[in-house]
Each structure stands twice: as structure tokens, then as C-alpha cells.
């Protein structure tokens, strides 16, 4: 009984407020921007093979974002969300985990899916909502998901994945699996009630879940100092009795390190861990957004100097695991591949009309089938009005 024990703690006889200053939150940094390590820094478990995979994923991420933003500008794609400047959070998180771990994301973490090996075609087919999209063309671009790769399909309502991750991890524990769940979210989404629910329940229900907050300074136009007044998101972990860690989110080695130790801890202790990765959303919120309406170029430039991909490259070069020629070849290759893939995917036809009503339930109920039958009759009557489906069922 908690309230019984309150007599055990410190007692005062004049009021003493506690506040944000009562807790000091250090930030973990391993890699400097120039590619050298901080003195005394402890590396994550990483060898050349893993490092190369991570680095290539980062570059692929950067290239795909760049190409897709351009495609959207050209009117080929309806919508896109880049992760410019904060790619290390998602790629490094996946790199610190095992393949059997579940990844639940907000939306700006496609890097984790890239690391898991989702194919370029799969990405494209989702974005072009075509017949080959695993999601059957039902959600807006960037709402990826893959059962095979243990990557939960993205859902637009913010924060909902947080208590879900707790439940998912609880199920993994129940089954005795060697697996945890990682749950990504932005510092904005952390304001949702679901955040509170998910973290508190994880602590109480002892779920092996890693909460990974990308604190990138903005929620669309809202700067984080209009989002909360506490010391970031990590300080909240204290209130839930959750082990918490703040890291430099642009430091790929810190991200991998943090995720690795969080995984080990969560699994061993059946307990959640909270990681707050400090970063900055260098690009627009999405292709529908223009940040010049709410922040300065100077601020953006300050953060350009912290590029996580360049930082890792500098390290790779220093390690002699990588060279400039390989680097430019990689960028060139990825650019060509992405461009080629766009051209293929944008031409693939739309999903079959029947997919409009499948998966609402496990089995299509009578009333819905009747609605489809009526729809088909209608389309047959006005084929010109429904050019993508007329004559195709």
C-alpha cells in the first residue's frame, strides 16, 4: 500500500515545492559531428557489416525523401512526409533491435521499415495507392505496414499507437517470446491522453516496451515550448516510474546504443523504457506545409550543421569502412532506382473494386455485399464516370 509508506520519506515542516529543476537529465552523446568519438564514449554493439547497412539505409532514406518530395511537387504524388535531419532516430532504433521485435510508429519513421528490408517497390506501391499496395490503396501515402517485417501499419490519429504498443508488448511477454515492442511518437503526440495511458499502463502492467520519443522541436507549426513546459519528455518518465534516457537523436551511435540497452533492460525486467531523442525537423511538416510561415531560416541553418547522416559518414570514413567514391556511387544508384521505381508504380492500376468492401469484417456481411452489387450495377450504367474501375470487375 503506497500511502502507508509515505511516512518513510523525507519530512519538512515548511512547504518546499519540487519542480523541473528537481531532476537533472543528462544527454547521451557518443559521436561528434566530425566523426570522432567523445572521450570515454561507450560504443554500441556494431561491426562493419551492421554499420554499412545502417549507413546505406540512411542514405537511401535521404534519397527517397528528396525524390518523393520532388515527385509531389511535380504533381505525381498526392502527399509525402520527409524525415530530413532526423533519419537517425528511426534507422538507429531498428538497428538496435532484433527482427522479431514489433515496431509501431507515428509516420516519420519509414527509416525503420527501410532497415527491416521493405522493398523500394513496396514503398512506391503504397504511396501510389495501387493494386500492389500491401495496404490495398486505402490510406494516404506513407502509411506503411508489414506483418512479415513486424512493422505495424501506420494510423493517422496521433498517439493511439502508444497504449497499443503496451498491449502488444504485454502479449509478447504473455507468450514468453524473446521480443519487445518499440513505439515511436513525436513530442507533439506526447501531449495526447493516450500517451499518459500507454506509459502508465506499461509501468503497471510490466510490459517490455520501448517508448521512443522523437523530440524534433515542432508539431506542425507549434514549437515545443508551446507544447509543454517541463524538461522535455524524458522528465515525464520519472512520474511513471519508468527508466528514462535522453539522447542526441542525430547521433546514430547513441541511438543504437540506447535502443540496445533499452531492449535488454525491457526484456530482462519486463519493464518499459523511455528514450527521448533530441533532434530537429529540418524539412516541412509534410508536403502540405511551408515552415517559412512560422520559423526562421537561421534556426534551420543552425540545425543543418547537425546532419546525422554526414556525422555517420564522417565516422565511417574515419573507420575506413567507407570512402567518398562509394558514397557518391551510392547516392547516384539510389536516385536512379527511386526514379525508376516511381515510373513503374505510378502506372500500376488501382486496386480492384471489390477491395472497397473487403476487410471491413473478416467475412463480408450481407448488407455490404448488397451495397457492392448495387454499386457495380451503377458503374455499369455510367462507365465513363468511373474510369478506373468500369469494366474491370
Amino acid at each position, binding site marked *: 500500500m503506497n500511502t502507508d509508506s509515505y511516512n518513510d520519506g523525507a519530512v519538512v515542516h515548511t512547504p518546499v515545492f519540487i519542480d523541473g529543476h528537481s531532476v537533472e537529465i543528462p544527454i547521451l552523446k557518443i559521436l561528434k559531428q566530425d566523426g570522432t568519438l567523445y572521450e570515454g564514449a561507450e560504443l554500441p554493439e556494431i561491426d562493419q557489416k551492421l554499420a554499412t547497412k545502417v549507413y546505406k539505409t540512411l542514405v537511401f532514406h535521404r534519397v527517397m525523401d528528396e525524390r518523393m518530395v520532388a515527385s509531389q511537387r511535380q504533381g505525381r504524388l498526392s502527399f509525402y512526409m520527409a524525415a530530413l535531419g532526423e533519419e537517425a532516430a528511426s534507422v538507429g532504433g531498428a538497428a538496435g533491435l532484433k527482427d522479431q521485435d514489433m515496431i509501431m510508429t507515428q509516420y516519420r519513421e519509414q527509416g525503420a521499415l527501410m532497415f527491416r528490408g521493405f522493398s523500394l517497390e513496396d514503398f512506391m506501391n503504397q504511396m501510389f495507392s495501387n493494386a500492389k499496395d500491401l495496404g490495398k490503396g486505402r*490510406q494516404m501515402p506513407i502509411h506503411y505496414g508489414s506483418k512479415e517485417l513486424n512493422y*505495424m501499419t501506420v494510423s493517422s490519429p496521433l498517439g493511439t*499507437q502508444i*497504449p497499443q504498443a*503496451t498491449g502488444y508488448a504485454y502479449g509478447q511477454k*504473455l507468450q514468453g517470446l524473446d521480443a519487445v515492442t518499440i513505439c515511436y511518437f513525436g513530442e507533439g503526440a506526447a501531449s495526447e491522453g*493516450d500517451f499518459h495511458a*500507454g506509459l502508465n499502463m506499461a509501468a503497471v502492467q510490466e510490459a517490455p516496451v520501448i517508448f521512443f520519443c522523437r523530440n524534433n522541436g515542432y508539431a506542425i507549426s507549434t514549437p515545443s515550448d508551446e507544447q509543454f513546459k517541463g524538461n522535455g519528455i524524458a522528465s515525464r518518465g520519472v512520474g511513471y516510474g519508468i527508466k528514462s534516457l535522453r539522447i542526441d537523436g542525430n547521433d546514430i551511435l547513441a541511438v543504437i546504443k540506447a535502443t540496445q540497452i533499452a531492449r535488454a533492460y525491457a526484456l530482462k525486467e519486463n519493464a518499459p523504457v523511455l528514450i527521448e531523442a533530441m533532434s530537429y525537423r529540418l524539412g516541412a511538416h509534410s508536403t502540405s506545409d511551408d515552415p517559412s510561415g512560422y520559423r526562421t531560416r537561421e534556426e534551420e541553418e543552425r540545425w543543418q550543421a547537425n546532419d546525422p547522416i554526414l556525422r555517420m559518414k564522417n565516422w565511417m570514413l574515419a573507420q575506413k569502412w567507407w570512402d567518398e567514391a562509394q558514397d557518391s556511387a551510392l547516392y547516384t544508384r539510389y536516385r536512379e532506382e527511386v526514379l525508376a521505381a516511381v515510373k513503374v508504380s505510378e502506372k500500376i492500376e488501382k486496386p480492384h473494386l471489390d477491395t472497397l468492401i473487403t476487410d471491413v469484417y473478416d467475412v463480408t456481411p450481407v448488407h455490404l455485399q448488397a451495397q457492392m452489387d448495387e454499386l457495380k450495377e451503377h458503374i455499369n450504367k455510367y462507365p465513363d464516370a468511373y474510369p478506373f474501375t468500369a469494366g474491370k470487375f
Partner: protein
Amino acid sequence: MAQMNLLHAINNALDIAMTENERTVCFGEDVGYFGGVFRATSGLQEKFGKVRCFNTPLVEQGIIGFANGLASQGSVAVAEIQFADYIFPAFDQIVNEAAKFRYRSGNEFNVGKLTIRAPYGGGIAGGLYHSQSPEAYFAHTPGLKVVIPRNPYQAKGLLLASIRDDNPVIFFEPKRLYRASVGEVPEEDYQLPLGKAEILQAGNDITLLAWGAQMEIIEKAAEMAATDGISCEVIDLRTILPWDIETVTQSVMKTGRLIVSQEAPLTAGFASEIAATIQQECFLHLESPIGRVCGLDTPYPLALEKEYVADHLKVYEAIKHSINY
């Protein structure tokens, strides 16, 4: 067969579900050691351990969020919301998440293994916040199933079917009947079908349709009408979503008249959906307007509950009105 009240029947169904599948988990506020404020989960923690039957913190959005995640993982999640009146903080997790989980992912993921139990309804002097019948709020949501039993036998069979059904199901339990409704219930496993209405009494002059605790009311009204020589066909809808249009249509084709009664307020309640559909399906067969006997369009009151509710007298009047139209 044993005599069980509605609570026992539910407890028994949960016991069977947890016994047959070790991945079945029951949780909610006060659900664990204490067995729930109505005692529906009584004894389950003792029998299946704290990991499979437990208290959650007091946060409905978390309970259902957690349940969604657990179900998507492949566990069988049976979540309790302490009163249906307190389901609204979880509305987003139900309507935007559970209902759309399978569709939005192209069936990569689903929460078919989710069942949400919640005591609902009035008649217990509970006032605004311990009396609501919120089924219509969920009925506008493709992807959900909504089930409401009328007695212990139905409760056990429908709950087992709900837990095993591969879609998210909201299972509303008529709390007024928890102890009041007692009946024969087989101790062994059985299921009753979802999506199927049941004709409790065949009749020729008019169809009476309701669900849950309201069944008692329309049965009583049917008895009164019988003394006037009016033959009522009495139907329990049982599943609100997706509902059994076929059975109701067939009945109204025969009787030519329909009264739907619900506890919830009239406007935009589920009775309205039924009326809208049946006027379409049975247009040429209807001999009088479809009547809806419902709660008034106010929050659920306390002191004037008796006046507020759709009681058997109001249903009886509606029957006569329909017959004499």
C-alpha cells in the same frame, strides 16, 4: 442445466474462454482480485493468475488502446469498461482504431480478437451516468459488431460467440438484469450466432422489436395486447451491428406493422436505422407508420426516471395506435 443469473452466465462464459485458450486475458478497472464492481470476473484471477486477469489503471482509453494492441498481437483480449457511460473516453480507440484496424492495413493486421464488455442501461436509479444505452453511437461504425443479450442463456452463448468471432465486438450487458434475470443455462460450452435476430413469439398483427433489457418490456406489452386480441410477433435483435435485416423484413412483410423500442433517446437512435431500412424494404406492405418507443431526447434523468423510460404502457399504446391507424 443449472440456474444462473446473468452475472453467473457471463462469469461462466469467461471461465470457459480462459480455460480453452491460455492466450485469453480479462482486464479492466477492479476486474482482478475483487472480480469487478458487479463481480462478473469473480474468481478468474484466483484461477488463471494475475497475468491473465488483472486490474488496470483507471483509464478507459488506455484499457481499449492496450486491448487493441494485445488483440493485434494475437492474444484474445476481453476488456471490461465498468459502465457503458464511461466508454466514451475510449471512443477514439474503438471507432478510429479497432473498427478500422483491418481495413486500413489491407488485412496485414487486425483486432478481431478483441471483445469489449460493458454493463449498460437504466432502471437502477443511476441517473445520467449510470444508465446510458450507447449502442447507436457505435452502430454508425463499419468494422464493429455490437451485441446485446436479453437473459443469462443468451448472455453466455452470445459472449462466447463474441470472444471467438474474428472481429472487434462490443458486448453490452443489461446491468438491471445482472441479478434479476435468472434462468436455465447449460454448464457446457455453446454458442449463439452473431448477426441473427430471434423470434421469441410468432404473431400476425404487428411486429415488436427490441434488444437487451427492453425485451421484457415489449413482451409485457405483447401480453397486454393479446388480451385485446392483438397478435404480436416479438423479435429480439440480439446483434445491433451488423443487424439481421432479413428476419425483421420477413416479419414485417407478414404483419404489416412494426414497433421498435429502445432505452436510448429517440433521435438518431438505432430504432431510427431500423425504421429507415424497413420503410424501404417493406414499403408496399406497411399498413401504418413504423413506431419508435424510446427514451425522451434528454439526458437520462433520476427523479423522473419512471416517466422518462419507454415502459410497457408506452409500447402498448404504440401498438394500439399502430393497429388503429
